[in-house]
């Protein structure tokens, strides 16, 4: 499809400016000559009609959650309720300036304050910061909180334990806090090896970052012992909330002994992913850690009956962003929790766990489970049986697209000998049994195709807007802008460029 630049026609307008342009004022009288750009910066010149058609067409090249099944493991692609969107875009919220006087934003502050209370109850924590913009941002914030906590005690801990099954963001976040990352091996049941943990957890160790259920979708049944081992050595326990969707109303991280928790509001709490954000990665802590949260937090002055931004003072790690939060994401979360109520939240986790185990039970004859036990809200199977037919997990995933479904997460987690060529399926509560049956039917069909006609898989997908991409060329000769392309125009010979409007 053409780029917007290739649709540009000189002097076309897509925008109307106010009529009064202060013609009596000269730019040279406002700005020094050294600062003014001599030439206009070239963007594109298209009409509003061109823009609307361009982006409508682009949107049709995407596959969204409202299009169908989206079983990405560890991503919790659940339905994004439409009422949330409406209520998050009320004018009084959208047009509020972050530095407007507190008395003008009492509504926004009330939502943040109330949401904090709800999240504390759901996770058994004592206080949340709404500042972090994404899961990884929350992880960094959590690590910095733990760091400052120990520094204040004169305790020089510098190592962070992270299971081999963890998301890449965990070690990357710990490294940003300048901790040395120490990997904890999983045992044959796919969970933390307690002997190994006890050996590694020492007085130089900050603690353990744990996802529960973990990234294979398995509950860590040793959680009580894990908690004892870490706390016994004075460490802190960090909860990666990526998989909280298996826990609502069932088990609360705070009750299990976690000290710091991050929640991906764009996963468990139903806010849309937006093709990679914005989400929010709010951080909850136990009482002792509250002073270390990023400043400020929202507080309520009961004398004057008003909400305000409270500066946490010198113990706080400081700010991790400009202003306060990804506010619309908070409203959507708030609305979702209130739509669900306590029974609805429990139902969400219960249904998602049943969904995942149902898929596992029906598929395990065809795709070997990484671990043969019940799973949480997602299940991990492998495609390694099909290697002998020349078919990889990647091919299975691509073939699913031909049947109109988004593939599950593949090749993650990866650790031998259990989890290789992995396919991780997360069918959240918003997926019906009929949808799961359809998925199961297609997966079984693909397993037959792998045996009888492997080429169908290795050349898949066949009927998507584009087909398999050459990632090697992209990395070796990076073309990162349209101007890069223009420089190489004699070398590049594209098939469809001018045909497809």
């Amino acid at each position, binding site marked *: 499809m053409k*780029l*917007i630049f290739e649709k540009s026609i000189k002097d*076309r*307008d897509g925008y109307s*400016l*106010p009529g009064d342009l*202060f013609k009596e*004022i000269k730019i040279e009288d406002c700005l020094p000559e*050294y*600062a*003014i*750009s001599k030439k*206009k910066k070239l*963007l*594109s010149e*298209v009409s509003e009609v061109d823009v609307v058609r361009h982006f409508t067409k*682009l949107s049709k*090249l*995407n596959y*969204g959650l*409202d299009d169908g099944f989206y079983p990405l493991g560890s991503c919790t692609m659940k339905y*994004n309720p439409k009422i949330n969107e*409406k209520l998050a875009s009320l004018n*009084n919220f959208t047009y509020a*300036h972050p530095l*407007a006087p507190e008395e*003008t934003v009492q509504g*926004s502050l009330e939502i943040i304050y109330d949401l904090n209370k709800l999240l504390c109850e759901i996770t058994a924590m004592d206080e949340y910061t709404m500042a972090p*913009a994404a899961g*990884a941002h929350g992880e960094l914030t959590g690590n910095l909180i733990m760091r400052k906590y120990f520094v204040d005690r004169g305790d020089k801990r510098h190592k962070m334990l992270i299971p081999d099954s963890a*998301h890449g963001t965990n070690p*990357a976040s710990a490294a940003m806090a300048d901790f040395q*990352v120490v990997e904890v091996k999983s045992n044959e049941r796919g969970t933390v090896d307690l002997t190994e943990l006890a050996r590694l957890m020492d007085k130089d160790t900050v603690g353990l970052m744990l996802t529960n259920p973990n990234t294979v979708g398995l509950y860590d049944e040793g959680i009580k012992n894990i908690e004892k081992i870490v706390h016994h050595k004075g460490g802190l326990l960090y909860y990666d909330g990526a998989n909280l969707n298996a826990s609502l109303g069932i088990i609360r991280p705070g009750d*299990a002994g976690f000290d710091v928790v991050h929640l991906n509001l764009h996963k468990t709490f139903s806010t849309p*992913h*937006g093709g990679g*954000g*914005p989400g929010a990665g709010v951080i909850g802590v136990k009482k002792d850690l509250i002073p270390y949260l990023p400043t400020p937090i929202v507080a309520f002055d009961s004398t004057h009956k008003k909400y305000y931004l409270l500066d946490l003072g010198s113990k706080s790690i400081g*700010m991790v*962003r400009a*202003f306060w939060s*990804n506010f619309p994401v908070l409203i959507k979360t708030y*609305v979702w*929790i209130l739509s669900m109520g306590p029974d609805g939240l*429990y*139902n969400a986790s219960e*249904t998602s766990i049943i*969904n995942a*185990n149902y898929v596992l*039970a029906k598929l395990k004859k065809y795709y070997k489970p990484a671990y043969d036990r*019940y799973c949480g809200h997602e299940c991990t199977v492998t495609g390694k049986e099909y290697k002998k037919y020349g078919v990889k997990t990647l091919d299975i995933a691509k073939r699913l697209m031909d049947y109109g479904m*988004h593939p599950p997460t593949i090749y993650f987690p990866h650790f031998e000998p259990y989890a290789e060529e992995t396919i991780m399926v997360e069918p959240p*509560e918003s997926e019906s049994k009929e949808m799961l049956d359809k998925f199961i039917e297609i997966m079984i069909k693909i397993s037959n195709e792998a045996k009888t006609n492997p080429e169908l898989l290795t*050349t898949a997908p066949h009927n998507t807007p584009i*087909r398999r*991409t*050459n990632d090697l060329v992209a990395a070796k000769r990076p073309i*990162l*802008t349209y101007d890069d392309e223009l420089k190489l125009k004699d070398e590049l010979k594209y098939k*469809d460029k001018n045909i497809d409007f």
Partner: protein
Amino acid sequence: MRYIPNTEEQKKEMLKEIGVSSFDDLIKEGVPQSIRLKGKLNIPEARSETELEEKIYNIAQKNSNFYLMKPLIGAGAYRHYIPEAEKFLLQREEFWTCYTPYQPELSQGTLQSIFEYQSYISRLIKMEAVIPSIYDGASATAEAALMSLRLTHKNKIMVSNLVHPHYRETVKTYLAPHEPEIIELPYKNGLVDLEKLKILINEDVASVIIQNPNFFGGIEKLAEISEIVHSKDALLIMVIAESISLGVLKAPGDIGADIVTGNAQSFGMDLNYGGPYNAYLATKKEYIRQLPGRIIGETTDVDGKRVFVMTLRAREQDIRRERATSNICTNHNLNVIAADIFLSLIGTKGLYQISLLNTKSAHYLENLLLKSKKFEKIFDYPFYNEFLLKSKEDIATINKKLLENNFVPPLKICEFYKEENLKNVLLFAVTEVLSRDNLNKVAKILSE
């Protein structure tokens, strides 16, 4: 529950297929009974959609009617007009509800849009490689500072005092674990103090962070700054808090910037009480291996079509884990699409004219306010669309008058700067949402 299709009957059927007698049976292995939640969560019972709508509308009424209130405040968040076509297009579920584009076959819409945005920003700031999305200007600036430490293997950073205070705070927070020396570069008469820069800089400095226009709205002498910074082999990190200024101002890449970070909120993003906004982080191609975050590149598919993919992936956390250039994963992708649509709509001419208009109307207001004799200049410096004026009247009175007349008051600069001469000083911001009539009204109210 309307978001959960499976009925109780279906769930029972499924449990049977799984081979367990009940849900408790299914999870008893993984969740020790002793830590299972006894009873229900103590939160309000579920509400219907209509009840909820009423509740949230009522809460929203506790905010001022910001739609009608024209802001005289900027300070890193600017209200610009957002064309309706953008808002409409952004509602498309294909953009809203999809995941990170790990499967290019099903994500060309997102990928091409990001590529277009990278191309736009590259032209605006004259940098070769643009990371389209770090969470916001503050975190992008912190990432740029970390990047400069990696590139130079030095551990000292110099930050202009006229970089947005929240950005400076965030840089400190991100860098704290690495215990670098952070030197604050003072200002003089509303701009970076060049003499102090010359004195303070030396070969140990990894990078110097300068915002332009600066927090006071001032236009820095970037060419001179660049010369001083580069004479000591330090990197120049240029921060842009108001990206619309690029319409009239020179591109940072043309005046010696090595790394550029920019708050893109002005490119079609609502104020939303502080976020989500978005920031770009850009540099020269020689430094691309040290860039944090996601970038999109062009290639072909097996049929020879031009397509777009995530590229230079080996820097990222899912591959490089603790040695990644950053931990960033989810970013503010939808804001990138918003900005791509916004820039496409306003186009070459629109960007120039909005930028020009913002400059002129800010100067128009300053002039009116000075004429009223109720305000005086404290610095004589060139500015873009924000400026400082000292009020002779008490600020609380001014704020009250402005709020009563549906204007969001300007920033009290003493909230961020404690200097004696900055008491009772206001930082005004003007954009195209304030018409000449609005500005005349502001001047009139404040003259009375």
